[in-house]
């Protein structure tokens, strides 16, 4: 670049000022142009990718063909990055408990001294996975058949990894440097529920899609709604819409890989909303066999290892079935036998009963420490709205997808149905 000397030569002063001004104007255009090009590139690229014109052109298929393709997919090896965004509109307290992974609205301070040992901060999957219920998370998955899976929840400065290899299950939480280990068919929760194999437990697109398809019957409309591109792959969009009025589900959309029928993206949108409540989709995917080493795990030096067995023994000894909201419920006697189903299809409502004394707070007093002035009823009322009907009075806790009615005499009704439909079901 030639040296630039705006003020060195003997020129007529007026001339100089004019040329300087012109030069200044021209030069100021340079950063403006650079900014324009940058903004254009940044702004236009996603806009073009989003616009309908770039949707892949694929041969037409019927809904039945697509469902078959999805159901019959032979894909059992894949790896990639999944983005999970959930916006269930849960009351703040519950959502906070979920993201706090282990603290519970039913048992603040529960466990007493054991908490000091870090019982609430183990790498136990049950204390980590509820975090996925709120917000947006990046999850890396690798699957090689039914015996080998790996899943990592990628946080800003930490990572939680869950590795299943044959009869070994390992979990590592880098934030606390703790390891959880379970062996054999033994990886059951202390409370007795079966943990299940990893892919059945975790909301990969595959998993979520299968659940939605299980609900397909006369109550549901299933159509093929165009095509889309997910993680660089061409896909058909399967659109599932409930025909029943009472459901809070607006639509379920599944992007099915045009080549191999693998589900790539799952979106659940509540009725009357544009914003998805659950959005699980690959941002990157490969159907090649993952590297064999991906499924090996050796506990890092210095990490604290919790054995599933020890955890269970400790819990049994303490006379508590578990920690965390779900286990607390189980411990309070919510056995599956107490649950009945009202209604059909999308309008189904689960009915169950709270054990005696929960609402009055009496049930908590044995072996559990309740904070001063803690009243379950007040807590419940602060979470929801008071309603009345044939069932007497109760509280409805609403979210964008699931509504729960707890009556004052301890009946619980839960369903992905509107508040009115829930009350109607309770009145039957």
């Amino acid at each position: 670049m030639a040296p630039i000397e705006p003020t060195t030569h003997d020129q007529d002063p007026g001339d100089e000022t004019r040329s300087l001004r012109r030069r200044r104007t021209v030069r100021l255009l340079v950063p403006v142009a650079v900014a324009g090009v940058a903004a254009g590139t940044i702004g236009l690229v996603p806009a073009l990718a989003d616009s309908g014109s770039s949707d892949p052109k694929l041969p037409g298929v019927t809904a039945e063909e697509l469902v078959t393709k999805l159901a019959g997919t032979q894909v059992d090896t894949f790896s990639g990055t999944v983005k999970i965004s959930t916006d269930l509109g849960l009351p703040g307290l519950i959502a906070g408990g979920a993201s706090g992974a282990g603290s519970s609205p039913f048992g603040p301070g529960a466990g007493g001294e054991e908490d000091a040992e870090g019982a609430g901060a183990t790498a136990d999957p049950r204390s980590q996975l509820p975090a996925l219920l709120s917000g947006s998370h990046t999850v890396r998955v690798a699957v090689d058949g039914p015996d080998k899976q790996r899943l990592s929840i990628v946080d800003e400065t930490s990572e939680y990894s869950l590795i299943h290899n044959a009869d070994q299950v390992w979990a590592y939480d880098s934030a606390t440097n703790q390891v959880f280990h379970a062996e054999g068919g033994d990886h059951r929760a202390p409370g007795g529920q079966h943990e299940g194999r990893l892919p059945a437990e975790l909301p990969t697109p595959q998993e979520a899609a299968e659940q939605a398809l299980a609900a397909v019957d006369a109550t549901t409309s299933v159509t093929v709604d165009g095509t889309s591109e997910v993680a660089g792959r061409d896909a058909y969009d399967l659109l599932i819409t409930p025909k029943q009025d009472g459901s809070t589900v607006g639509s379920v959309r599944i992007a099915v890989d045009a080549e191999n029928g693998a589900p790539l993206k799952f979106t659940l949108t509540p009725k009357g909303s544009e914003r998805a409540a659950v959005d699980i989709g690959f941002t990157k995917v490969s159907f090649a066999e993952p590297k064999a080493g991906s499924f090996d795990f050796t506990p890092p030096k210095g990490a604290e290892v919790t054995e599933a067995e020890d955890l269970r023994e400790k819990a049994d000894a303490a006379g508590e079935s578990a920690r965390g909201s779900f286990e607390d419920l189980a411990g309070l006697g919510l056995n599956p036998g107490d649950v009945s189903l009202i209604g059909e299809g999308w309008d189904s409502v689960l009915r169950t009963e709270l054990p005696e004394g929960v609402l009055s707070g009496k049930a908590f007093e044995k072996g559990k420490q309740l904070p001063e002035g803690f009243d379950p009823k007040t807590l419940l009322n602060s979470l929801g709205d008071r309603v009345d009907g044939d069932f007497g009075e109760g509280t409805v806790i609403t979210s964008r997808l699931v509504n729960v009615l707890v009556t004052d005499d301890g009946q619980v009704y839960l369903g992905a149905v509107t508040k009115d439909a829930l009350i109607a079901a309770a009145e039957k």
Partner: protein
Amino acid sequence: MLRVDTEERAGEVVTPRVAEPLARPGRSGTLSLFWSELGLTFRRWRTLALFAILAVIPVVVGIAVKIETRDGGVAGGGDGEGPAFLSQVTNNSLFLVFTSLAVTLPFFLPMAIGVIAGDAVAGEAGVGTLRYLLVAPAGRSRLLLAKANATAVFCAAAVLVVSVSALLTGMALFPVGDVTLLSGSTISFGDGLLRVLAVAGVVAASLLGLAAIGLFISTLTNSGIAAMATTVGVMITVQILDAIPQLDMIHPYLFPHYWLGFVDLVRDPVIWDQVQDNLVLQAVYVAIFGSAAWARFTTRDISA
């Protein structure tokens, strides 16, 4: 101190060029201009003080972690709270580098960059040495380029000071050995050092956008203090904007947005997306504010 700078300019830089007016600055001229800028930046007390602060922070963090875990306790209370990677530091000295960078990245490092970049042009204009420089046929573009390069070198040096200090403190206080990555897999200490190098490089590069902004602001005023304050103010404002969830549509375009993305280099396998986005973003900022600084500096009236 300012007087010394003035004399330095008069003695080392300006006089020789005035004495040999026929020598048109070629490649070697550009280089010597860069070296003189670099010398000017790094010989200042201010710069040395900044380096000293940056070097002390890892030592403080290291000692604090050591004291907290002295009797077998877990850093950060064992629940993963506190600065990033705190629970890993006790197991491996290398993690003190990552913790220290995560601690200094939100404020101390960018503040240091703001001071140096903001002062680069405005400081000399304020003291009155700038016009002597411009008498020499070095050319304003060349001078600005030399200053920009010296600022970039300072970014790298500042990150290096934090990293080396953290590495030495870590090796003195904590075990040296195989490194556990965030994903739970283990690599050798040598490979770990390579990751540290990569992380330091990415962190240094992620400060370049702010450096360009500082340099541009520096060409707008004759007051070095005003330019520094404005640059640091811009840095803080943008970080606040980056923390407001309601503004998440603009977040990917804010220069500090991917700063913590260096963490992805400590995973297995490495996730490159954020690092790549960060580098592109910094390049865009450098292009926009670098050209703006050039447009302003080459056309402005320099009277002081």
